[in-house]
């Protein structure tokens, strides 16, 4: 018999290395002779969208288009250290470093423009589309490439997240910042004859602070969901006496596109004051509430509580048989 159930999972996640360990990101921004800005930063693109997010932040600060930012983030001989691409920390930490560095570059550009344009002050100057101009008199302007012609402008900056070391006996302290929140609800079907579980519907709400790029956040949510689906129902390397039994995709099964459903992804925006444009990290949070939602939905469907993952068909049948006795 096919039975259906719904289940809910909620989560919070503290960003960063944590526990007072110095969580530092560095960046350098250079106005080049062609009027483009090179941003050097060690944020690795692991597929999460770091390159795009950093580029968007730099664009926003400097009033430039995406093609006018040259992001350099591949070679240790040519970029400062921005920490690891982990702990959901790049958007928050390196995003802050890039924002701060570009803001300092913007001020330096305004100062130079003031001199070149024979102005009394840099107040009221604006950067847009490769020009610096007086907002109240836009004809009074100079192109960034003309500013950088005989002098390259270069700024270095860094950002350190606020965390404190916890007390070793009580664990009290402020170990991470910021925290990201989320919830997921799913509807599943459980075949009581075969033990097969299928996810039929999902609503996924993710706190993002503010989304730098909503499509990329949704991509993360889809990816996190699929990884959590595998975690809940399929994945185990199956170690026997220290040996990995499932060491290929023949027997280590992960979800495929055929296992995925259309997820109703909902971004919840509530900007975080210390974050770049309010943006929090979501790379890990998007995986966390999904597996417990599936487990709770299985219970709702067949009234057996499964406390060990992955919930394979044979385990479902085992638990169903136990509950009949």
């Amino acid at each position, binding site marked *: 018999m096919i039975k259906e159930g719904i289940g809910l999972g909620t989560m919070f996640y503290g960003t960063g290395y944590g526990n007072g360990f110095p969580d530092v990101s560095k960046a350098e921004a250079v106005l080049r002779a062609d009027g483009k800005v090179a941003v050097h930063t060690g944020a690795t693109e692991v597929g999460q969208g770091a390159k795009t997010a950093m580029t968007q932040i730099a664009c926003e600060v400097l009033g430039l288009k995406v093609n006018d930012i040259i992001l350099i983030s591949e070679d240790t001989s040519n970029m400062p250290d921005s920490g690891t691409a982990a702990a959901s920390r790049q958007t928050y930490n390196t995003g802050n470093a890039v924002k701060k560095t570009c803001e300092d570059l913007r001020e330096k550009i305004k100062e130079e423009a003031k001199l070149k344009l024979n102005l009394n002050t840099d107040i009221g100057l604006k950067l847009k589309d490769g020009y610096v101009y007086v907002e109240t008199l836009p004809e009074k302007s100079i192109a960034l490439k003309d500013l950088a012609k005989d002098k390259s402008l270069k700024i270095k900056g860094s950002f350190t997240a606020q965390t404190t070391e916890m007390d070793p006996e009580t664990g009290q302290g402020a170990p991470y910042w910021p925290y990201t929140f989320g919830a997921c609800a799913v509807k599943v079907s459980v075949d009581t004859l075969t033990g097969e579980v299928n996810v039929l519907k999902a609503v996924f709400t993710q706190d993002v602070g503010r989304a730098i790029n909503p499509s990329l956040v949704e991509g993360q949510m889809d990816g996190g969901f699929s990884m959590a689906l595998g975690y809940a129902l399929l994945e185990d*390397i199956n170690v026997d006496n220290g040996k990995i039994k499932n060491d290929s995709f023949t027997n280590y099964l992960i979800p495929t596109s055929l296992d995925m459903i259309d997820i109703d992804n909902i971004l919840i925006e509530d900007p975080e004051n210390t974050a770049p444009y309010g943006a929090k990290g979501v790379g890990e949070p998007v995986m966390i509430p999904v597996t417990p939602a599936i487990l709770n939905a299985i219970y709702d469907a067949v009234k057996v509580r499964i406390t060990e993952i992955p919930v394979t068909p044979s385990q479902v049948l085992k638990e169903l048989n136990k509950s009949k006795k």
Partner: protein
Amino acid sequence: MSYDVVGKNIIRVDGLSKVTGKATYPQDISMDNMLYGKTLRSIKPHAYINVDISKALNLEGVKAVLTAKDVPGKNHHGVLFKDHEVFCEKKVRRIGDPIAFVVAETEEIAENALDKIKVEYDEIEPIFDPIKAMDKDSPKVHDSSNIVYHYKLRQGNIDEGFKNCEKIVENEYKTSRTDHAFLQPEAGISYIDKEGRYAVCVATQYPHYDRLEIAEALGVKEEKVRVINAAVGGAFGGREDITLQIHLALAAMKLKRPIKAVYSRKESFNAHCKRHPLIMKYKTGADKQGNLIALKAEIIGDTGAYASWAINVLRKAGVHATGPYEIPNVEVDSIAVYTNNPFSGAMRGFGATQIPIAHEQQMDMLAESLGLDPLTIRMKNIFTKGSKTSTGQILKESVPLDKCLAEIDKKMNFTQSYKGGVKE
């Protein structure tokens, strides 16, 4: 406030090169005069070893067989503790530990040479069960206790708290050891660049830290090493620890020729870390209205043969053990333990992904026993602006969990479909 670029769906800047196949992943790179490297790995989980490479060295086309003796700097690495050896010198601690790196003219010769290396294993009693591994008398994976880390969280009065509960639920939960299963297995190439630096081109999460670890093993200054991060085909925490970076750089240093290595999927599974499997004993209690009063959790994480990020993972698990709820009385013990299993490290969520398998099922069980629906019991207890976490941290802004749940209820009707905590 609205922005010009922030908040816009800008097309991923690295997207075109990836969908057209133009992005360069490390295994796409070949160089003139290039050699190939293959790693010999332990087939025993716990043993003293004696390695004889002479036959492999004599094979035509073999240029070098690197072992612990060939590491000029420190024969170690590790993201936190330096408990990994670049090549195991006296003892292996898990199946898959690297023992030697063969460098040859072709991949085939390197592969054949692996069979010619003689390793004598003098087996030691292994330990696979993290709970047994905590015993004083259990076999030791490293020199001292197998307990790597113990995080303690204490808030309020746990005994008093449980006395004041209307309902208490208790359960033990277990999570599996999983792989990141990123699309692109480990690969890399190392060479000496024009400036005389040891260049290592790989796919990594943290190029600067790799540079530091490579430099330390080579016994050179950091400036003498250059890490170039090619396109990264997924990571999820599985590219935090060193795998082939140091082996490649050592070979380039010794032979002054470019060296390339590409792991098979099977080797990839055996080379990088796994998600920590956790055993979680949970006891959660609430009053008649469904307000959480007390939570006690014991979490044991099997970190396998090496610590990697075990401390940070079990710390994160412990800090997040309550779930996103205000609970006045909390006692959490979160412990990381060495065993002779494959080593555990970073993986998406870092301990915080395992924990809700427990706390979220506890919530539903409490709800059912109190005649509440799953959403209502959460709404009563979730963090809101101004809440204090169980570590005493004030959440002063941006805590929109109530909004997240309200949106979900609109679409899934938890409060309507459950009546008196029981679904129609």
